[in-house]
């Protein structure tokens, strides 16, 4: 089975986010990137499937700072092929553009299964999975937390709000948006990653013309603005009650 996992790096929220001079984007100067948590689960799920029923796992990711380390870590975990898309990703791309360019490359890889993280915290134009499915002409299911492959079918576990769980059957090839792998992403020892750095190869592929059509244009990006200041009322119950009545009167509700 041929499993492709598109992975993207997202801003690491450990660092404080700042808005750049344009006022419509994050300042990349202080930005530190980290693998999208859900993509991490998608990678783990792909490896679990491979361990269970064989196959090949290909990780594909747009170029960004730190992407090599992420790819080597994936290789140390068990990924077989590592593809880095090189193109005009510097100023960030929206998911429409990313899905289009990924689809072109992924088509050639002829996957049986495409596993992607169900969402990312910087998805501004919807999550990647459905877009990718559309461009690939494959079925899609999101919020998946377990996959069993059976011939050319996959049975996926999907969680609904309220604790309902459904098992759905899909015809392969298909795109799945992974919410959680069957087990949490495993720890990969640094020495294994270092070993992978020495032995694994990164394939670079050109990402042809990025087309963001269909996504929104960002007008303004800003930090949450503090609402009008609240008044803290202190004192014993009587004092607090008096003050409350006073405020209600001032506001004309009493």
């Amino acid at each position, binding site marked *: 089975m041929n499993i492709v996992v598109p992975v993207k790096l997202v801003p690491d929220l*450990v*660092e404080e986010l700042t808005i750049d001079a344009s006022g419509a984007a994050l300042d990349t100067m202080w930005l*530190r990137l*980290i693998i999208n948590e859900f993509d991490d689960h998608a990678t783990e799920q792909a490896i679990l499937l491979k361990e269970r029923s064989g196959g090949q796992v290909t990780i594909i990711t747009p170029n960004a700072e730190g992407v090599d380390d992420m790819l080597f870590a994936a290789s140390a975990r068990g990924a077989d092929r590592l593809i880095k898309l090189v193109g005009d990703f510097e100023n960030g791309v929206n998911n429409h553009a990313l899905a289009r360019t990924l689809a072109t490359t992924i088509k050639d890889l002829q996957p049986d299964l495409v596993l992607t993280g169900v969402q990312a915290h910087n998805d501004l134009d919807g999550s990647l999975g459905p877009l990718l499915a559309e461009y690939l002409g494959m079925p899609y299911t999101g919020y998946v937390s377990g996959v069993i492959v059976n011939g050319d079918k996959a049975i996926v576990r999907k969680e609904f709000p309220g604790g309902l769980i459904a098992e759905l059957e899909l015809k392969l090839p298909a795109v799945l948006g992974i919410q959680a792998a069957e087990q*949490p992403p*495993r*720890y*990969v*020892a*640094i*020495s*294994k*990653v*270092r070993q992978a750095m020495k032995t694994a190869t990164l394939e670079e592929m050109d990402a042809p013309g990025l087309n963001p059509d269909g996504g929104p244009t960002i007008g303004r990006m800003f930090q949450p603005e503090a609402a009008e200041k609240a008044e803290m009322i202190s004192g014993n119950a009587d004092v607090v009650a008096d003050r409350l009545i006073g405020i209600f009167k001032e506001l004309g509700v009493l």
Partner: protein
Amino acid sequence: MIERINFWEIPEIWHYFAYVVLPLCGLVMLGRFYGRIRLWWQVGRPERRWDKPLVRLWRLIKFGIVQVKVLSKTYPGLVHVAIAWGFFVFFFGTALATIDADFIKFLRGPIYLIFKLMLDTLTIAALAGIILAAYRRFIQKPSRLTLDRGFTLSLTLVFVIVFTGLLTESLRLAAIAQEPTLQPGWSAALAWWTPAGWVTAQLWLALKLTPAVINSIHLWIWVTHATLVGVLFIALPTTTLVHMFTALMNVFFSKLDRPVGQLAPIAENEKKEPVYVSTLRDLTWKQLLDGDTCTECGRCQEACPAYAAGTSLNPKQLILSIRDALHRDGPTLAKGNGKSLPLVGETIKDGVLWSCTTCGACVRECPVLIEHVDAIVDMRRHLVIEGRVDDILQGALANLGRYGNSFGQSERMRARWTQPIQPKIKDARREPVEYLWFVGDYASYSATLSDVTQKTADVFQKASLDFGILYDGERNAGNDVRRVGEEGLFEMLAEKNMAALDKCTYKTIVTTDPHSYNTLKNEYPANNGHAVLHYSELLDQMITSGKLKFTKKLSYKVTYHDPCYLGRYNGVYDAPRRVIEATGCTLIEMPRCRDKAFCCGAGGGRIWMEEAEVKERPSETRIHEAIKLDGVQAFVVACPKDVTMYRDAVKTTGNEERIVVKDLIELVHEALG
């Protein structure tokens, strides 16, 4: 002149027993012993332990013959030494007797008498030792001892051998006392050179046995004695007494190549691949020898905080499981067929390994120098490479790999605690400093510790110390990362710190964290001759040199907790105590102090792991120990993690009214006025 008579009144036929049968038994013993120990190198990996033979010989004498560690516990120590020395002397005595009988006659006159006195004294000592050992084993029954049949059997056998020896001697004396011609030169006065024998002989004399009767009893008791010696020889390699040999070997081959605070890097096989210990085959021959050496004394168990807390780890059991696995699977493995069964995960469960705080108490206590911690870390390395770590630990390791600290915070926040400090602390990467303060993760990031860290800076500034820090260039030093078994991450952290340190000009590193201290001092390659000091040592130096002058005399009654990585691992016991006393405080020691200090439970990466089900946390046990002391107001620590651990423990044990946890620096700060 009186002289030794060979085979006194023993018919010649029995001489063959001594000259033929007993040596044959000895050969059987050696053969069986070889059969047991060949597994070490047939199953285990090679490891070089032959260098520095003189140092090794010295260790053999110190720990194997004089048995200083055995003696560190008085009652069992003396009991053991009495019996062991009995053995040594009987062995030595037999050798001398053989020389005297078959080579050069020299046991005559005073030499003979001294020889006799020596044997006789040790007979009494050994018998007394055996009786006291039996008392301990059958009446006192301390929980740390293994109380099974094997030990009873050995003890009985040894007792009967020594006792029949005494009887033989006494019967001989009784016979001679009746017929002095049997040993020319004999007199009743000289008989007192064998006091125990002579006193016992009085019994035979009182019974008025005829010389003929005495002679025949003498013969049969001698035969019993000699036969039992033969039995002992044959049985020895599979009895608990085998430790006579293995213990001597184990102390001889104990590790010399590095200080206790230094772990060995991951070993490589012939193909230059790393060896992670998961089966018997991955252990070194010395680690298998450790298993065969364990005397089951349980001293490690008694000292172990993980065992006391009720976790699944018992260091004694851990070593014994290596031994048992070796004797279960070793013979098939040695034949080259048979797969190596998993040791880790099967015989030794993951949870056992993760429970260890690497406090080193077991290693310190073990009378035969078994190296528990090294083996535990070796096996943990396997678990890490397999990804068998708990979620919290995994998170911490991931954070350490990504941000260089276990808190998962940006390195840019590392020096945030310095913000209110004026004048600004020097950046050691930009300007030369005399002291480079390696702050460490907890002191840097933990919100509850910033007060203590700031006070440290204040004290340094008040003492006009020329110091600086690495700001965001510092990473976790990696001591506990290494002890968790994440060697690759340790190397990465160490490389980053070394690169940062290399760019600085400084004379001495100082740190408040014993864990960082240990690894910087013992494990960072080529520290370029820079000394590493713990702040307690630096404070002590500054007090002595007058750089630090106290204006206030504190009058607290305090106790002091020795951090494992400062005390046991690096022998720094006195500096913090001198500092405490210099502040005017009265120091009252806990029963377990200095090298016997009880671990807080945080070390070896335990602070990053899920808490196991425990009866009582080690830190809580320790607080209970402290509040039993009369009138102690403060529990003084010299480790940032200890501040956290013990403040929690004081709360959870409900002792907030009775005792406060203070960092050493808080006392110093207060005394500065």
